[in-house]
């Protein structure tokens, strides 16, 4: 087995930055009580300005005027790590979260599908860059060795277990993730690298440092299997972004929304699923949260398509108050069945397929705005058609001519006496559900040249009620 470790060195900072528009100045995460605010992480520009993690916020602001800060949220960091694991699930069925900032995945069994390691590595790096995480990646025969290598040397790859002791030999003991008291004692004894540790007899090590260190070395070299729990993607998607300040304009919401739907798409691609219904929730300062439920006709998983529908719906919504927090929730994640495209279809390249067009129209005009028609065998004119339903073809019974336009409700026909072109056609039906109809229908030509379909009381030729137009 070969394990790839994705190490996210600046996870806290990336997690905060990726959901925002890029800041235009130094940026830092802060934590602590109101009197004891301290920096937790700083970006490159803040570091260049002389700031460092652990500094007091007051000091930092004295050094750097235009420092932008955001509250550090450990929970958010965990969520980002879980998202990375969900994404990695796309490349391997065996993914392990190694807190606080690493994800390990077994890749050897994926070589058949994705190609050799350099190709997988390129794909991993491309995906991570798109997700907005800075990263280091290394490959090794054991999860622990991969993590240590990722930490020490980005891009390192050790394919065979025999090479492992030699590669790890030059790694300082202090960086090898050994139990802390043992590491301190080894440093005191002059054991600086793992190589000198590997040279010692195992029994002597165990006697001197207890079984903990020996086990750690066994795990490192793959002499015993690592027992980190395998990651299983949950059956729902839940993400939120706390802005830390009030966002008043729609425009400011679009960037984080696009990012969240991108996360959702990455998550769906990993489980080969789609999403049909999801809710976007906006939390306000002093108003109940606004929910925008979004329903699609068929499961979808393209980030761009999801964002487009969500954006159209957001534009239609009036938010009652500034937004503090944005969340995306999806409970049901049905399997995704890709639309089969015709190889020989001569449509233009920029064409929008009909299902996506319907989604776009529904997003702006309303859920019921687009529908098909079907003929119903009911003899009453107003019941002889149905919205949507299955498109099972029903041959309409051969009736006298029917108008192409039907008025939703008949209205009195006024004006000069019309010329009768056809009729009367007696309709006396509908006794079974109380909606009885007794009418004589006529095809009329009005003085204006219009052709009307109108009825009157049976036996009387007028006055007429207009029920349709022969257009």
């Amino acid at each position, binding site marked *: 087995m070969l394990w790839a470790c994705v190490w996210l060195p600046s996870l806290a900072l990336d997690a905060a930055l990726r959901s925002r528009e890029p800041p235009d100045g130094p940026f830092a995460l802060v934590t602590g009580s109101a009197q004891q605010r301290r920096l937790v992480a700083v970006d490159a520009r803040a570091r260049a300005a002389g700031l460092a993690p652990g500094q007091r916020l007051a000091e930092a602001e004295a050094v750097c005027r235009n420092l932008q800060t955001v509250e550090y949220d450990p929970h958010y960091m965990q969520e980002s790590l879980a998202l990375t694991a969900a994404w990695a699930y796309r490349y391997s069925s065996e993914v392990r979260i190694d807190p606080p900032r690493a994800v390990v995945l077994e890749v050897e069994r994926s070589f058949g599908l994705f190609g050799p390691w350099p190709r997988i590595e390129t794909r991993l790096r491309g995906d991570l860059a798109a997700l907005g995480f800075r990263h280091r990646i290394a490959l090794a025969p054991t999860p622990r060795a991969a993590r240590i290598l990722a930490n020490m040397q980005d891009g390192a790859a050790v394919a065979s277990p025999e090479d492992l002791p030699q590669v790890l030999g030059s790694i300082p003991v202090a960086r090898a993730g050994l139990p802390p008291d043992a590491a301190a004692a080894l440093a005191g004894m002059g054991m600086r690298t793992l190589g000198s540790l590997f040279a010692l007899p195992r029994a002597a090590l165990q006697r001197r440092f207890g079984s903990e260190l020996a086990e750690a070395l066994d795990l490192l070299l793959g002499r015993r299997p690592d027992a980190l729990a395998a990651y299983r993607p949950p059956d729902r998607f839940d993400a939120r972004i706390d802005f830390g300040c009030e966002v008043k304009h729609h425009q400011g919401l679009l960037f984080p929304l696009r990012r969240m739907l991108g996360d959702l798409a990455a998550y769906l691609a990993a489980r080969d699923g789609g999403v049909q219904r999801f809710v976007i929730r906006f939390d306000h300062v002093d108003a109940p949260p606004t929910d925008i439920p979004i329903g699609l006709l068929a499961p979808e998983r393209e980030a761009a398509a999801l964002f487009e529908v969500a954006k159209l719906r957001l534009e239609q919504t009036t938010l009652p108050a500034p937004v503090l927090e944005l969340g995306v929730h999806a409970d049901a994640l049905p399997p995704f069945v890709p639309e089969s495209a015709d190889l020989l279809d001569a*449509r*233009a390249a*920029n*064409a*929008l*397929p*009909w299902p996506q*067009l*319907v989604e*776009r*129209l529904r997003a*702006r*005009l*309303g859920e*019921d*705005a*687009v*529908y*098909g*028609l*079907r*003929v119903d065998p009911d003899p009453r*004119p107003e019941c*002889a*058609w*149905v919205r949507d339903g299955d*498109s099972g*073809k029903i041959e*309409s019974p051969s*009736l006298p*001519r*029917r*108008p*192409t*336009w*039907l*008025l*939703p409700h008949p209205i009195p026909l006024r004006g000069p006496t019309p010329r009768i072109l056809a009729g009367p056609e007696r309709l006396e039906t509908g006794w079974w559900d109380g909606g009885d109809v007794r009418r004589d229908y006529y095809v009329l030509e*009005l003085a*204006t*040249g*219009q*052709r*009307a379909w109108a009825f009157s009381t049976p036996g009387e030729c007028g006055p007429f009620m207009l029920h*349709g*137009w*022969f*257009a």
Partner: protein
Amino acid sequence: MNAVVALDTLIRDRRVWRGQPAALPSGAQPTGIAALDAALPARGWPEASLTEILLPADGVGELEVVLSTLSRLTRSGQRVVVVAPPYVVYAPAWQAAGVDLAWLSVVDARDGDIAWAMEQCLRSGSCAAVLGWPVRIDDRTLRRLQVAADTGRALGFVFRDRAALANPSPAALRLEVGPGVLDVHKCRGGNPPAPIAFARS
């Protein structure tokens, strides 16, 4: 001279005018009304363009003009969309006229969204014909629809009151439907022909 252009092509595209009228091949989008096809320069609806149909009142035969086209398109498995119809699209009559209802879709839209919905459908390339009844529509919006029809290679039909004839329009064809007469006011590729008698079925 590296590009050799066949003379037939030039004549068929009406880029060369010949002294005597020649019988032209039938158009790609025949209207189904022989007299109208013969009178129009494209021998049918202008392809991938907007057609304006102007009427004095509802029920003078405005749908009869297009129904045979819609029937032809839906039967060959191409989608037709009806945007904001003024009345209920009465399915039995449309089916009786030959329209395959499986390929007919109706879009309900409020006044402000009608032109938007039409533009989306025309531009998408997944609809063969789009019919719309915009309440108010200005010159610029019509031009947008014309461009969208061109992009999506679709037939656009806008139904308007004949009062709009007073204003210029970017549509490729302006056809007035009156009781028993079809009057072409503008057609791309030729001078408007004389009014055509139109016998209603």
